[in-house]
């Protein structure tokens, strides 16, 4: 696998629920070692796209490659290289933090001392070591999210996809999580796809793709998207692309 292979290549993907089209001919590339923001209003199709990337849904039309492995043909290879944080909470609330992590490690074929060591490492990394014996139920929303991100990293994926990970979190938790995930890109070369509807989570040096009504209406570096829309900043560019206005979901 060469460095030229993108972390994620989505080509011509369409998806429908019955007669309702959720995605139309979506093209999306997540470059290696970049923080890419998938920006879209609620209902734009972000979660559907995540379900396709993770093969919860089968690809109806088009292709999805994770680090060069086509998800429909080599799901195991693709999923081994992908860390995922879903929008909905997915921790087992009856298990402890450590048990949640060890279970996830086992689901990736990692067991024994190796799994325990990795779990301790990621927990320490996310400042959760002292909560490892607590049941997930006892954690705050921000802590749960940190555990979920730590869990997504336990099998050391090269590509991390997070679907609206800051929804429902306070400002402090939100910025802490964002900072940590950006750190993964800078310090470890992890490629990140960060889905959100919050414009303040986009930084000037990010790659960005704007998803609107199931279509990617703009993609590239933030500066390119702003220039292409002949606007002054990302907020104005987003409004120009989607018609999003104050009072919509854009914040």
């Amino acid at each position, binding site marked *: 696998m060469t460095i030229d292979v993108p972390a994620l290549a989505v080509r011509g993907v369409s998806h429908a629920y019955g007669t309702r089209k959720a995605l139309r001919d979506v093209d999306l590339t997540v470059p290696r070692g970049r923080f890419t923001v998938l920006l879209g209003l609620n209902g734009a199709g972000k979660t559907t796209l995540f379900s396709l990337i993770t093969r*919860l849904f089968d690809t109806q039309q088009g292709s999805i490659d994770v680090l060069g492995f086509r998800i429909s043909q080599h799901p195991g290879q693709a999923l081994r290289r992908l860390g995922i944080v879903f929008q909905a909470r997915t921790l087992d609330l009856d298990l402890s933090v450590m048990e949640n992590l060890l279970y996830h490690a086992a689901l990736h074929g990692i067991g024994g001392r190796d799994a325990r060591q990795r779990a301790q490492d990621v927990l320490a*990394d996310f400042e959760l070591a002292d909560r490892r014996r607590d049941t997930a139920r006892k954690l705050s929303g921000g802590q749960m999210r940190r555990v979920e991100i730590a869990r997504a990293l336990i099998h050391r994926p*090269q590509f991390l996809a997070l679907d609206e990970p800051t929804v429902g979190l306070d400002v402090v938790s939100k910025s802490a999580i964002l900072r940590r995930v950006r750190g993964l890109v800078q310090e470890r070369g992890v490629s990140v796809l960060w889905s959100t509807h919050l414009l303040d989570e986009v930084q000037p040096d990010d790659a960005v793709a704007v998803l609107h009504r199931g279509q990617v209406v703009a993609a590239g570096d933030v500066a390119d998207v702003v220039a292409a829309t002949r606007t002054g900043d990302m907020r104005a560019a987003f409004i120009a692309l989607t018609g999003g206005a104050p009072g919509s979901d854009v914040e």
Partner: protein
Amino acid sequence: MSATIPRHDDHLPPLTVTHYLICLRGIVWREALRFVHQRERFISALVRPLVWLFIFAAGFRQILGVSIIPPYDTYVLYEVYVTPGLMAMIQLFNGMQSSLSMVYDREMGNMRMLLVSPFPRWFLLLCKLLASTAVSVLQVYAYLLVAWLWGIEPPAWGYVAVLPALILSGLMLGALGMLLSSAIRQLENFAGVMNFVIFPMFFASSALYPLWLVQQSSPVVYAICRLNPFTYAVELIRFALYLEVDWLSLAVVAGMTALFTVGAILAYDPARGLIGRRGG
């Protein structure tokens, strides 16, 4: 950010049998942990058949006469007759409990983490099935211990001989539960499973009364009992407990296990199944 975690790189060793076994152990371990954490589930799983044994069977022993029928070589007390049925009942409820647990996992999102594991989906579902079966077998042996204290003493080797039968019937009922879970949209719909699956399967079977007795009372109900796969699970267990093999029951239970398992795997297949259309 500390530097304790190595840089994430491309090169991953292929998944081996060891990795598969680690995954299997992890899923069984999680199922067992959940069972241990949910003490009420264990207690209710044990109390339910014991209520039948202590109260129902005690009441009916004077009413229902059980003549000599295979595998028994003599007249037996009603408690003795009903014990294999109650063992199968534990597994039936456990299978449906697993189904409930899968619907709950789906609603809570845990199911997604299982389904995005790199192992093949059929393998993950088989692991779930084996985990559920292991839990049900433990429950049955706990029940057998109490039943032994109550004076129900099958042959000593019967406790060993019944294990493969319990595994097979546990797999069949677990697979049925898994198949049902793929069709249930919400936890609220689960009451329907109780009314339309558990009760009819249990009562229209040889669990509580011998089929010859049913045949005398109602040929229609008898025919339903004969078509009910749960009847064969009960008979498989009954014969195995007395060191015999009921080949017809073995064939039916094995066939139904295969059928339900394939159905569940297809139902959870993202390309074909109900879950694929609706999402995990």
